[in-house]
């Protein structure tokens, strides 16, 4: 049986000044799917992710969440749609006026009806998951870049949202931490069956967490395949990416 569509992007266009970042992009993500988006640096992966929660509005095209047009909905409804998401930002984007505990509690306070004691428990739980137990009272400015990213990850999953967006969750983490985070993602998948969109440059991570792997190039999704097929694809762009071969990608040296 086909799962219902959670996120549908159609004909998405976005330009910053003269620079076209998204150029008629189509992408459909079904409930419970984990999709990994690959693409060269600066290709617009983060921009794509921001369109899904409505942090950026497209110049043309449509963003639909559970069948609702995000930008045709009144702002109250739009916030309701947003509350189904949990997003981990590329640079963490922790609130630096709050300590780590308050950061992770933020979505719990605003989007759930949990009691203070339960919030505290859930915050501790999430910090355990990212191997940073007991740092609730630290300020974001006291953390390393990798720690901040992990706290951002913990904040994104805290309220157990139905749709998770991870922008390079493992970049800059050591191999052991990367493995730990992949395990957390696997565990989430098994327990909660969320819809998941992950951006990463780490192919090992990509192939181990993805149901589908998509490649963004020049403003469009140029490949969207199950991991096995993606790995063995003969498409020159895909093959260049998988092998990390700058000779194979016609645009690589520009």
């Amino acid at each position, binding site marked *: 049986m086909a799962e219902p569509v959670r996120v549908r992007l159609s004909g998405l266009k976005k330009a910053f000044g003269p620079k076209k970042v998204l150029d008629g992009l189509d992408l459909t993500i079904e409930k419970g799917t984990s999709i990994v988006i690959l693409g060269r640096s600066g290709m617009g992966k983060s921009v794509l992710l921001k369109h899904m929660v409505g*942090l950026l509005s497209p110049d043309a095209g449509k963003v639909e969440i559970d069948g609702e047009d995000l930008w045709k909905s009144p702002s109250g409804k739009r916030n309701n749609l947003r509350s189904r998401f949990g997003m981990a930002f590329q*640079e963490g984007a*922790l609130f630096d006026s709050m300590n780590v505990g308050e950061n992770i509690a933020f979505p719990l306070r605003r989007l759930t009806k949990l009691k203070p004691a339960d919030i505290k428990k859930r915050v501790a739980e999430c910090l355990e998951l990212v191997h940073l137990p007991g740092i609730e009272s630290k300020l974001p400015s006291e953390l390393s870049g990798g720690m901040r990213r992990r706290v951002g990850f913990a904040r994104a999953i805290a309220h157990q949202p139905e749709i998770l967006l991870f922008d390079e969750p493992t970049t800059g983490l050591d191999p052991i931490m990367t493995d730990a985070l992949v395990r957390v993602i696997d565990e989430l998948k098994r327990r909660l069956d969320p819809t998941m969109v992950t951006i990463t440059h780490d192919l090992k991570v990509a192939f181990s967490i993805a149901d589908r792997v998509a490649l963004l190039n020049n403003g469009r999704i140029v490949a969207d395949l199950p991991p096995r097929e993606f790995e063995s694809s003969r498409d020159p762009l895909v093959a260049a990416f998988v092998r990390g071969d700058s000779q194979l990608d016609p645009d690589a040296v520009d």
Partner: protein
Amino acid sequence: MAVLEFFGRLLLGFLEGLGRFFVLLGQTLRGVFRPWDLRALAAQMIRVGIDSVPVVFLTAFFTGGVMALQTYTGFARFNAEGFVGSVVALSMLRELSPVLTGLMVTGRAGSAMAAEIGSMRVTEQIDALVAFATDPVHYLFVPRVLAAILVVPMLVVIGNATGIAGGYVIAVRILGANPVVYLSNSFQYLEANDLWSGLIKAAVFGSLLSLIGCQQGFDTRGGAEGVGRSTTSAVVLGSLAILIADFFLTKVLF
């Protein structure tokens, strides 16, 4: 031609900024009537207030003193030294204390609001707020604007008292005025309206400087340099707005 274009652009930029200001003003006003966080308001009141008390104190004291010196020199020419106290008190309450306090709070708190919200913008913290279904204007602007509207009049009361005290010290200690006569003259000719018109001005100045500070921060673009620009324009535009509003308010409140 280039000159025309330059001024045209300047005018357009100004009108755009003005329009943007009123949009955010409307959103903030609407936000006031939705439930807001009392603790956030208290925190902002403490920050705006505590930050500014020392400078308001010093400014008002020396301004009161210099008013006494200047009016004494003038009034002595037609034997009206006795009215120095009245003039100092009247000008402090109606004009100098509200305007100078407004300018000082713009420099301390308005700029701090622009810097804080601006850095939240460039580090994607505002995006994070939106992603967690939180209206950033409501969350960030409302407590700051309300705090400034409440706190600036309180600071003006402090300024009134220290200004009159400054005039008294100069007049009695340096110019040799009779302390009893000076004090009774200070208060004898004051009307309730003198105090009220100053406090109304103060509340308006508070709303202007905080809204402009928040708006400049909110619309920050382009990294640390952008935050610097926003902070500067929060002070420049905030001060200008206060001086212009002062003229019209004086006309209305005489």
